């Protein structure tokens, strides 16, 4: 039981529906807003760290691409600091936003982010978290945004000691959270909403 005394009750989620792009990526949806869509770029010239590209697609339970999805990512900078007013451990790289948003491609369900590889996060309790990127996926048919994480294939030791990955007992399930390195500084991270390779999702 919670020890807190909550006074208000959570607003329920509802699906983002098939037209989430109108509200969240209006330029992508063809609306002339005169400005770039929010989250379309995470990095500015001179950003610190290793520039990487992450691409992938969202698939449904039959393996069909989810072409009306929107994917958001949130991550630490190269040194493990978050660009957020709630970051108390130091100041993150001002040339790095940490948050990105992509409308999935209308044919392939694909998304792509140009970002930097996050550093390990050492929290205020001294616990070390393997480099990771939070993913949040919404679409028609998803009643509450799905939360998952990308981990890196070249961080074997850090992954083995990560407290969140340690919650997953099945190795095949852990594999759904490890991006595939497809080229130098280029990773592939597919998200399977359902099915044999169903991605592990979190309630966090």
């Amino acid at each position, binding site marked *: 039981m919670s*020890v*807190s005394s*909550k006074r*208000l*009750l*959570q*607003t*329920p*989620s*509802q*699906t*983002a*529906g*098939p*037209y*989430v792009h*109108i*509200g*969240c990526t209006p330029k992508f*949806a*063809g*609306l002339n*807003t005169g400005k770039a869509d929010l989250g379309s770029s995470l990095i500015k010239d001179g950003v610190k760290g290793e520039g990487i590209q992450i691409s992938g697609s969202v698939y*449904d*339970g039959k393996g*069909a691409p989810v072409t009306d999805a929107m994917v*958001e990512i949130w*991550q*630490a900078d190269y040194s493990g600091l978050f660009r*957020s007013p*709630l*970051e*108390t451990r130091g100041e993150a790289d001002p040339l790095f*936003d940490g948050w990105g948003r992509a409308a999935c491609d*209308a044919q392939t369900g694909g998304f792509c982010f140009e970002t930097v590889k996050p550093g390990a*996060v050492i929290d*205020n*309790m001294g616990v070390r*978290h393997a480099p990771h990127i*939070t993913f*949040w996926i919404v*679409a*028609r*048919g*998803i*009643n*509450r*945004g799905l*939360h998952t*994480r990308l981990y890196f294939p070249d961080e074997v030791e850090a992954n083995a000691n990560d407290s*969140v990955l340690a*919650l*997953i007992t099945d190795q095949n399930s852990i594999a759904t959270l490890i991006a595939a390195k497809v080229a130098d500084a280029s990773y592939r991270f597919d998200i399977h*909403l*359902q099915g044999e390779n*169903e*991605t592990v999702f*979190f*309630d*966090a």
Partner: protein
Amino acid sequence: MSAKGSDGIFSNWDAERQPKAYSQDYKSSILRSPKQPPISFPTTLAEVTGPVFGHDIIGELDHDLIHNFAASGESAIGPRIIVHGRVSDENGNPVPNALLEIWQANAGGRYRHVKEGYIAALDPNFGGCGRVITKADGSYEFWTVQPGPYPWPNGPNDWRPAHIHFSVFGPSFAQRLITQMYFEGDPHIRLCPIVGTITSPEAVQSLIGRLDMERTVPMDARAYHFDIVLRGREQTFFENQMDGL
């Protein structure tokens, strides 16, 4: 307001109030709902922190969907309404600087979208999206036209109740939320399979904007009131302990 204690653990998503992932009646959820339950863990820094959006991203007409895509001197067709309310967390703290992005169909129930197939007319003066940032007291307000209900391919004769989509960012990514506001008195609410993914009648009630005559502008626009409650942190002395670390 303290920015310290940023490891403070958020309360869980409220399973009684949040929608089920899978619903046989909402066909799109059948292949898009994970079969495995999500894995819970106490929020870490990645969930406690979150992006911040400056007021400079808000354009002059972003809060006014009646005019923000209209030709000069013209306006969108439909019942003029004000939607307003307050964003707070479960502990009752107002959430200032929260970015709300909104989108909706026009007064005839038609979205401005390449995949939209409904025969209702497009309104050349209506785009259907806007955004606002909450003030210091968590309050927000925007102007729009009341969207129409519309049919959708689900069951043989399903109609969505009139609704406005809301995307909400609190200061923590753990609070990220997308939801829909419905309108008081709409008979389609109780018939809707998407509303029906929420099993708690009280939770459904909390998604219904209420006619607010106090804020209605005479001879101009009716007002609807819609408050949003995001997850809050568990209040334990443990959080205070961490402030010193």
